[in-house]
């Protein structure tokens, strides 16, 4: 595993995002969506990307497949898929890499599927956009994939509205794997489903991954999902990666106060303590805080935090965090698990509002 994202290492990366900066032009001004984000996805690995809504997870994912919105602007950085910089490559080259190389499981299968086309046809058109295959063969392949994800292949002739939510999600998974891509991006793949179907879907994704060996970037706001499904984790806050590393290290010994806070929000089976929420909300992307972006909500923030922008530094094997007090964090973990520690911030932030 590489210790420095962006540097070449022995492990080949399927996707290598380096120093990516993305801004959005909005009516209110320029929104800072991604700030020098680096993220690598090793071959056949699962990387979880967690963070609150609006922290830039989806923007990062769209950048990874080069379908950013029209008002988005990449001001720096690159997105390498193997040796190809997707942001600099000609449109047709990028088109050929989409789906055949990088596919995606979307948040809402209902919206991603065209309501007036048969599910089978929508899989077939994905195949035929990249492979020189007859309609009949492509249809057979689509049916085969539906079977693989546990959907009756006969239902390929039906329309999306005739599918249940879980089946639609399975159909999207079948579609995402139909060209055997080596990278699958999954954007909150189970948000719209109930927990039992959620579990089935993830189990299906895991077993297919073992069988087919693709890499997975799993975007979610649910730390528990990442713990269960991923090898590595990247924690995003306000457009920056604040901590990343192997899942067990990051979860057991977090070095960023935001990760500590996220960990507190996990419901625990032993029920010794209630989940603790991080008070306040993410900063306005149009007016980001000058120093550490988490400082206004951080119980351990000092004056220096509000002045200096922290850099990602190594805190363990393949484990990096962006906190200027990272050396003191091991001593603060016990305190971070107490509800009172966070309550103080809540009081403070309310005072600021007044």
């Amino acid at each position, binding site marked *: 595993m590489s210790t420095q994202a962006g540097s070449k290492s022995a492990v080949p990366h399927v996707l290598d995002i380096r120093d990516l900066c993305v801004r959005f032009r909005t009516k209110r001004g320029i929104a800072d969506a991604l700030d020098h984000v680096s993220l690598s996805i090793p071959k056949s690995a699962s990387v979880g990307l967690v963070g609150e809504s609006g922290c830039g997870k989806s923007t990062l994912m769209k950048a990874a*497949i080069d*379908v950013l919105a029209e008002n988005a602007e990449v001001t720096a950085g690159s997105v390498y898929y193997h040796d190809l910089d997707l942001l600099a490559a000609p449109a047709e080259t990028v*088109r*050929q*890499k*989409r*789906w*055949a190389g990088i*596919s*995606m499981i*979307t948040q*809402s299968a209902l*919206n*991603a*599927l*065209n*309501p*007036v*086309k*048969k599910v089978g046809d929508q899989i077939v*058109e*994905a195949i035929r*956009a*990249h492979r020189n295959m007859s309609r009949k063969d492509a249809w057979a392949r689509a049916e085969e994939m539906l079977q693989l994800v546990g959907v009756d292949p006969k239902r390929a002739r039906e*329309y999306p*509205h005739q599918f249940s939510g879980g089946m639609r999600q399975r159909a999207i998974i079948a*579609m995402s794997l139909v060209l055997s891509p080596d990278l699958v991006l999954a954007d909150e793949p189970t948000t719209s489903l109930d927990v039992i179907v959620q579990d089935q879907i993830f189990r299906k994704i895991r077993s297919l991954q073992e069988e087919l060996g693709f890499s997975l970037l799993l975007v979610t706001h649910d730390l528990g999902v990442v713990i269960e499904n991923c090898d590595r984790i990247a924690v995003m806050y306000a457009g920056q990666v604040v901590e990343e590393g192997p899942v067990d290290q990051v979860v057991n010994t977090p070095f960023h106060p935001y990760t500590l806070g996220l960990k507190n929000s996990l419901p625990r089976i032993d029920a010794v303590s209630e989940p603790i929420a991080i008070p306040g909300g993410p900063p306005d992307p149009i007016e980001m805080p000058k120093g550490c972006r988490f400082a206004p909500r951080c119980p351990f923030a000092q004056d220096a935090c509000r002045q200096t922008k922290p850099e990602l530094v190594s805190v363990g094997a393949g484990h990096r965090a962006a906190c200027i007090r990272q050396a003191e964090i091991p001593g603060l973990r016990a305190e971070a698990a107490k509800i009172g520690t966070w309550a103080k911030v809540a009081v403070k932030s309310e005072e600021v509002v007044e």
Partner: protein
Amino acid sequence: MRRYIVRRLIHMVITLFAMMTIMFFMFRLLPGDPTMTMISSVMYPKAQEAMRAQFGLDKPLIEQYLIYLKNYSTLNFGYSFHSSREVSELLSGRIVNTLVLILPSMIVAYGLGALLGALLGWYRGGRFETSVVFVATALQAAPVFWLGMLAILLFSINLGWFPPGHLVTPGMFPDQDLRMYVSADFLHHLALPFLVHTAYQICFPLLLMRSSMLATIGEDFVEFARIKGLRERKILFGHAARNSLLPVATTIPMILSWALAGSVVIETVFSWPGLGKLMIEGVQRSDFPVVQAAFFLIAVLTIIGTFTADLLYGLLDPRIVYD
């Protein structure tokens, strides 16, 4: 599906019956006496009486109504008060003239309008789009007769490219047989009314398709089609335009029936002997059998058009289920 069609057929008959009833009484309640246009009551009151009896206008209104219903149920449209010719014969020639002008024009208007609208919506935000939208809005707001007169002034009188009216050069086809409709002379006469009508009718599908496209482009499945690596052409026509077509398709029957009923304007401007012109003549002469039959025909065409479009809509959008 079969039950739906049967139910719709019953509805169609009821609609037609209601429309026939309204039409019958409407014309008879209007001032004017059909015999007036032929015989002056001041000069020959007896002859006028005789003519009233011959037309059956002396019978009580309700009896006339029942005779009218009975005749229509056997598709007997009677004789024209004015020319004494069979109404069905009068109409059949005129309806062909109207259809030959209106139908191709509407097909081109909707086909081209939808295509242009789709492209405008897809390549949105240019100066080209702004100017096309401006021109289309202006054209749509302009009255057809005025557009027709301008076209005659420019293309017939000033440039001399097209004849200003009529089906063919007078005297060329005294029999008005089918060969006339495929002659170069006929097409030459058709060109100008066709262009004016198409230019006017193209605006609505064009503007509607454009706004429908703008709404569809923001949908997730369009972005997803791009993520799937489909070619831009395929995303445009296979997804964005395909789905944007749905609201445009629903307007076809409505606009088509308006165009048929409104053909009177373009036919008058271009002296085009179609159904619309026949109606005007009939109303002016209180020629009830002709007017009734003409309105009946338009009603039938409208109802059939609506029905076909409803079935078409079901084919276009699988979410619509008929039961």
